[in-house]
């Protein structure tokens, strides 16, 4: 995405360069060191990844604190490789969906569904597949872990990009057609910049979820195969097996450091940079700030170093074909032919759907009975009850607190980043502490394992409510004060309508995340002790550990249906209501 940035503030680069002087500033030194260190780390991590699998068995993950930084680095690298893959997926698939009506017919609903599928369930299939692809090499397992992260990130990014492409402003579309933009220039100059703010937001949400999955997918057990890839997730699972509290605490601390660094070095600079792609024509009052972004822009030398990098894509975008073909003007195909083609395509899709259903049926039919379906559905209901109750509880707790904070700008400014940090922090890192407590106090796992499901996701509710309460306009608050609105009336007529659209966004994210988290939260272990709550998550986790792919498939399918129905029946109507009735201005 860097190639978007262009040569922004340097209309006359030479003059600027001379004026700025050639003496490197302190900013240069800091920025240079940071960049060089990052490069070294990336190279180290990449070297390690291509080791043969035997090396992993020879040097298994140990609880040696000296190796923790390396593990943290490997975990982070996996995240970014997956992110890169997700971006490639987004740019190709979403663009295809937006440009071709036939592809759109399949891709748009598929993305919508994949967004709500519990991706942890995929691990069984992907590990087997990728280990077959790179037999005997660590790369296969790495790929499986990365693919697991990819499946947690890609769909909402692609969906957001697709929606942006569909809503390109008509006048800018006219301009690009009038000047005869090539498809590439159209992409670089119009489509990508327009989609950037939405995409950046979705990337950030994806990353938050991604940390959770990277931890869950590093220590993989599928049937007889158990692989622990060097990483924080494996460190934690080894620590759990050894019941080593000190090692656990160190793992958690390492994770916290990683998230803070990621927030400061990646998240904030990118958000600050993406601000200029916002489509509103008015200057915003509060612009996102990032010290690193400012540093990089201030650093004279780094800027001159970066200039060729910026130039390269510009040169690419300026490339012209050697032979310019005259524009080919084909007569538009007759409408009747178009309809026939559409019909053919629909028929093809229908055949594929029927065939797929048949294949799925024969696969499941050999291994499962209707009784299995009944059992899984019941377990699904148990998990559903947990999700509903816990989201309800989280709402009761965090909405008042969020409103209280949001109405006090001084507090909101300090606490909002913390809420966002907590949402990005992978809660499964903290599970062992809770599990140790449940074991020690002999609590009922059916009840006490449940809070783990919302442990990481409740923060989405909090930070969205804070944002909503801060956005209640001053004049509304003043009017409410003047007419003496207080108590329930104030909540009913000022606070709740004000935060509702934000709350729905937060609760929707939180509930989706909780379903996913159930796979790791309903079945946990501490040393040799295993705790399980009756639920669909535990069912999928057990089937995965047993390598029973038919049951995993059934569990994942049923959970997907639950999530999709839950979204369609509850969240979508609420979202639409909020969009229509409660938008301010």
């Amino acid at each position, binding site marked *: 995405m860097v190639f*978007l940035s*262009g040569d*922004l*503030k340097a*209309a006359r680069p030479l003059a600027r360069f001379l004026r700025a002087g050639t003496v490197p500033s302190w900013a240069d030194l800091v920025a240079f060191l940071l960049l060089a260190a990052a490069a070294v780390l990336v190279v180290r991590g990449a070297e390690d990844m291509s080791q043969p699998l035997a090396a992993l068995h020879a040097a298994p993950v140990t609880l040696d604190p000296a190796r923790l930084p390396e593990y943290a680095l490997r975990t982070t690298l996996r995240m970014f490789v997956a992110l890169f893959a997700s971006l490639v997926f987004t740019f190709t698939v979403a663009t295809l969906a937006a440009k071709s009506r036939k592809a759109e017919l399949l891709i748009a609903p598929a993305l919508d569904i994949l967004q709500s599928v519990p991706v942890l369930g995929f691990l069984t299939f992907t590990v087997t597949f990728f280990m077959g692809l790179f037999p005997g090499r660590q790369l296969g397992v790495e790929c499986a872990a990365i693919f697991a992260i990819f499946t947690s990130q890609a769909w909402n990014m692609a969906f957001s990009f697709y929606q942006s492409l569909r809503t390109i*402003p008509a*006048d*800018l579309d*006219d*301009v690009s*057609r*009038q*000047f*005869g*933009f*090539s498809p590439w*220039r159209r992409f670089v*100059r*119009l489509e990508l*910049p327009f989609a*950037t703010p939405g995409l950046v937001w979705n990337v950030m949400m994806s990353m938050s979820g991604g940390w959770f999955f990277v931890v869950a997918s590093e220590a993989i057990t599928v049937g007889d195969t158990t692989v622990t890839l060097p990483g924080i997730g494996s460190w934690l699972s080894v620590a759990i097996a050894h019941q080593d509290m000190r090692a656990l605490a160190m793992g958690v601390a390492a994770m916290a450091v990683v998230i803070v660094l990621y927030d400061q070095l990646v998240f904030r600079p990118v958000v600050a940079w993406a601000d*200029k*792609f*916002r*489509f*509103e*024509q*008015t*200057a915003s009052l509060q612009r996102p700030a990032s010290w690193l972004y400012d540093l990089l822009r201030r650093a004279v030398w780094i800027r001159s170093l970066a200039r060729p990098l910026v130039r390269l894509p*510009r040169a690419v*975008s*300026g490339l*012209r074909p050697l032979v310019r073909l005259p524009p080919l003007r084909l007569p538009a195909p007759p*409408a009747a032919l178009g309809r026939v083609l559409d019909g053919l395509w629909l028929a093809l899709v229908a055949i594929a759907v029927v065939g797929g259903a048949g294949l799925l049926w024969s696969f499941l039919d050999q291994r499962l009975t209707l009784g299995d379906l009944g059992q899984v559905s019941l377990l699904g209901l148990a998990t559903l009850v947990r999700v509903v109750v816990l989201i309800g509880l989280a709402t009761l707790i965090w909405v008042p607190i969020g409103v209280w904070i949001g109405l006090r700008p001084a507090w909101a400014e300090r606490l909002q980043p913390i809420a966002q940090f907590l949402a990005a922090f992978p809660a499964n890192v903290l599970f062992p502490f809770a599990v140790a407590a449940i074991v020690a106090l002999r609590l009922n796992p059916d009840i006490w394992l449940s809070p783990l499901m919302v442990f990481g996701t409740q923060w989405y509710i909090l930070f969205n409510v804070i944002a909503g309460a801060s956005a209640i306009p001053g004049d509304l608050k003043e009017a409410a004060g003047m007419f003496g609105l207080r108590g329930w009336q104030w909540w009913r007529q000022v606070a709740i309508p004000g935060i509702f659209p934000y709350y729905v966004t937060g609760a929707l994210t939180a509930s989706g995340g909780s379903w996913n988290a159930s796979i790791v939260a309903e079945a946990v272990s501490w040393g040799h002790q295993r705790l399980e709550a009756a639920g669909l998550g535990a069912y999928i986790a057990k089937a995965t550990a047993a390598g029973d792919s038919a049951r995993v498939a059934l569990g994942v399918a049923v959970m997907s249906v639950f999530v999709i129905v839950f979204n369609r029946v509850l969240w979508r109507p609420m979202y639409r*209501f909020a969009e*229509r*009735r409660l938008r301010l201005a």
Partner: protein
Amino acid sequence: MTCFTPTPSSALVEAKAIRHLYGKAEGANLLVLDNVDLTLDENEIVGLLGRSGSGKSTLLRSIAGLIKPTSGEIVFPPREDSPTTVSMVFQSFALFPWLTVLQNVEVGLEAKGVRSDERRRRALAAIDLIGLDGFENAYPKELSGGMRQRVGLARALVVDPSILLMDEPFSALDVLTAETLRTDLLDLWNEGRMPIKSILMVTHNIEEAVLMCDRILVFSSNPGRVVSTIKVDLPQPRNRQDPAFRTLVERIYAQMTRPDQGAAAARDGVFLGMGLGMVLPRVSTNVMAGLIEAVCAAPFDGRAHMPDLARVLRYEADALFPIAETLQLLRLAELREGDLVLTPTAHRYAEADVDARKSIFAQQLLAHVPLVAHVRRVLDDRPSHAAPASRFRDELEDFMSPDYADQTLRAVTNWSRYAEVFSYDEGADRFSLEDAV
């Protein structure tokens, strides 16, 4: 319909028998342009003047190559010097918010593959010409509307087009800014400092057309036709207070308010479409009431000259048209030769109290707006006295685009709510007789 036939050698572009239909391929369509001819010569500014929905923008966009008209052709006659090219300025400026002023201006050159130093040189020259120096590094969101449209102009000019197309370029600007920009553009044109050969502009502002153009094509609406071509011989710079200027403005006003001789139902003819399929503007009932009161009172006493009325009410003259036309549709007023004349019903309305006003308005709505009568009939017939709004929206979409259908239904909903003909529940998207008397 008048055709203008110049000497063929100097023509830059010829539009021949342009017809354009909007709407679904099957079923009823909106005829937006009906058999329109236009020839643009060298060294002239030509204005396309008409009310909204008269197809003037469609014609301009056809010439820009953004729309392919249903039938007819756009011809650029071959020329000795260089092939004719066009470039366009947009009403909404259409700047890329993520590019600086300089990058926005360069964008067209970049698409043509001009080398970067050459590009920079030409863009800076255009920026200089159009008075944007010092703003090269600014982003559009940092600029005022006037400055933004200057960027739009520079971007259009920098590619050296033969024809500059402008689609209501000043209508999104406040009065003072628009005037400054017009004057600056005319100065550049008169001094020959722009590389263009001709300008073709769309406007609905009569004074603007008379101020800037050498030739004005007046469009009728429903369907869009050229009703007359007016040559403006006044020397530049023109003075709005000049009696000759005023006379010309008055003449065009009269022309635009004269019922189209060809149309069968002159009164209904002002809006696009017929009967149920009429596209209605969203005019507030408060504004209608205000206009009736203003015309009823002194000094107009029931008959107001539109330009005077616009001045007294401080309305942009052309903003009055949709209001006046809605009153005409409801038989509360008539437009005659540039005058707005209230009907006896309107006089009664002006003197009535709130409830009586509502009932007069309801009668006029039911009698003269087919869609209102239709909805009311459906509601009366149903035992539940309720019907989903989507049903009528779908019906309208057989005649017009979804946007027009939505706009029309909203207009009718608001008028009917005021007149208590029927009520509407936004949450359920239903019409009903519940609260209506």
